[in-house]
């Protein structure tokens, strides 16, 4: 017989044994629970919250750092770009100046060469003309003496020869 109505007859009245064992159960539970069993659970939960809080803070910090680094890189990139543009402009200006100077120098050199060539040509012509004058004079006097069989005074014909050579030179020019 499992059922034994031997304790309290009225089902609503408390049975002494049940009161005592439930008090013992609850009191022992509470002492062990509060002192030994609950703190580790609470600690795990608090530690987790703390870790999550720290992780979020660290993530926030890392993000801020990354953002500032990005901004810095962007600024540096912009600076580098400006610098490159400036260098390019400078190089272009230098190159232009150099080219103009070289062209001017070349022009000057060319003009000098031309002038020297002209000078030398002119000298040569004068020399040829002088030589020609002597040669033509001698030839003409010699020829005329032979044809006429008279001696011609060289000093009197020299002006004639000079005029003749000058005419030829002017015709040639």
């Amino acid at each position, binding site marked *: 017989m499992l*059922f034994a*109505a031997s304790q309290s007859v009225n089902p609503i009245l408390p049975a002494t044994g049940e009161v005592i*064992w439930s008090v*013992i159960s609850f009191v022992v539970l509470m002492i062990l629970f509060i002192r030994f*069993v609950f703190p580790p659970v609470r600690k795990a939960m608090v530690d987790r919250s703390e870790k999550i809080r720290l992780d979020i803070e660290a993530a926030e910090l890392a993000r801020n750092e990354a953002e500032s680094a990005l901004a810095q890189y962007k600024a540096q990139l912009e600076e580098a770009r400006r610098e490159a543009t400036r260098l390019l402009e400078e190089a272009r200006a230098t190159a232009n100046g150099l080219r103009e100077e070289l062209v001017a120098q070349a022009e000057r050199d060319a003009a000098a060469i031309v002038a020297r060539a002209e000078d030398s040509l002119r000298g040569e012509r004068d020399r040829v003309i002088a030589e020609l004058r002597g040669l033509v004079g001698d030839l003409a006097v010699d020829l005329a003496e032979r044809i006429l069989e008279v001696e011609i005074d060289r000093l009197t014909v020299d002006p004639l020869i000079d005029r003749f050579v000058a005419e030829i030179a002017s015709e040639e020019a």
Partner: protein
Amino acid sequence: MLAAINFPPIGEVLNWRSIAFGSGAFELNKVGLITLTAALITLVVFAIAGRQGRLVPRGVQNLVEIGVDFITNSIVRESMGPQGLVWVPWLTGLFFFILISNLFEVIPFIQMPATARIGVTAPLALMVYVVFIGVGIRSQGLGKYLKSSLVPSGVPVAILPLLIPLELLSTFIVRPFALAIRLFGNLLAGHLLLIAFAVLTEALFVKSILLVADPLPFAMLVVLTGYEIFVSFLQAFIFTTLAAVYIGEAMAGEH
């Protein structure tokens, strides 16, 4: 034919014979064993959870932490505010002890909620009673505590002679009884309902002609078992919440 159903007398389904320590004051019966087991289960479950201490909780630890979170946020913060957080361990122990004692109602082969006995709920209610009065006296002093709990603020003096006895009755006399009887009554009723439908199902199964009707009480038994699980949680929650409200009120001195 239904008259042939042998419904056990109420004493038979509530009064259990002694298992140990004879039949004296320390007589240990099924109810006593269930309360001891409920305490042990609470301790073991929390000890396992605390020992695991994983960063990402799983299994038992997860279950326990959900319970602690629920008690912390839905009971303590709601009814006591942040200064009530020191009571979380006590209220957590109380909640799980009552919950497990309740759940034995639907555990196969045990099927007896320890809290269906006034001998279990009355001491619990009495302890809550002693605790909240003790907290009130300790945090406010006897005079101030009595004044804050008996004299509602902002009430005309003329009504006070009527109100003070009422407050005395409701705070210091009715509260512990209500706490004890609410839990006891709900679980006892559930226990008797389950027995009634179990007996009916069994009786119909035996009586061959009425076997066709058997699925009805059986379905009811299944539904009620689910419902009693819900009631177990609900009553543990109500008891713990009221304990929290009473202690919080005694701490704050508000009415």
